[in-house]
């Protein structure tokens, strides 16, 4: 079974802190994604990556950056956390060159609270 793990289930940070969210998948998937989930808004794509050292902006990249130094690991970085970044963050991965028709496998999520 594909396993996607995220470094923390719950995280509390202060405004202005630099925050790292880590995601690791164990199935050699090419594609990895970071979403944030907010009530009534569903999942919104922050960044995604189709290959090592490659990244593309999603729909809401402002205030975030990412890093993919190894195929299995995709990190989301909040350079200076703000209260409006309090949310549930979900990582996902999928195989295939484009990933279009493949199931996305999700991690359990990290609930981040910024105070």
């Amino acid at each position, binding site marked *: 079974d594909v396993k996607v793990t995220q470094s923390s289930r719950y995280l509390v940070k202060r405004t202005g802190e630099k925050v790292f969210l880590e995601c690791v998948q164990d199935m050699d998937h090419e594609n990895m994604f970071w979403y944030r989930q907010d009530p*009534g*808004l*569903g999942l919104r794509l922050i960044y995604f990556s189709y290959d090592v050292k490659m990244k593309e902006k*999603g729909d809401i990249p402002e205030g975030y950056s990412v890093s993919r130094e190894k195929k299995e690991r995709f990190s989301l970085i909040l350079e200076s956390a703000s209260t409006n970044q309090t949310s549930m963050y979900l990582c996902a991965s999928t195989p295939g060159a484009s990933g*279009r*028709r493949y199931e*996305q496998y*999700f*991690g359990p*999520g990290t609930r981040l609270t910024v105070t």
Partner: protein
Amino acid sequence: AQSVTQLDSQVPVFEEAPVELRCNYSSSVSVYLFWYVQYPNQGLQLLLKYLSGSTLVESINGFEAEFNKSQTSFHLRKPSVHISDTAEYFCAVSASEYGNKLVFGAGTILRVKS
């Protein structure tokens, strides 16, 4: 702009009653369609998907969804729900005009009451 609309934010239903969760999308070209489920305090799991072929797809736990191209819909149905079906359900669409990414609806919370 691309969009996926889930028409109901919450659906309360009694146990053993039928349920339909509605999903419409805006793409006009060929699409791949998915329903994901999120149980409390968990990540998303794939419930079922339509890639091609038969327009009626089924899951192992009794849910089914029908792809209706003319109405651009992919509604999710179950003839008899259980308490354990209480969860949030997300419809998602992938299409070339979405840049081959998944676009999610806002979600529908299904609350099954005894």
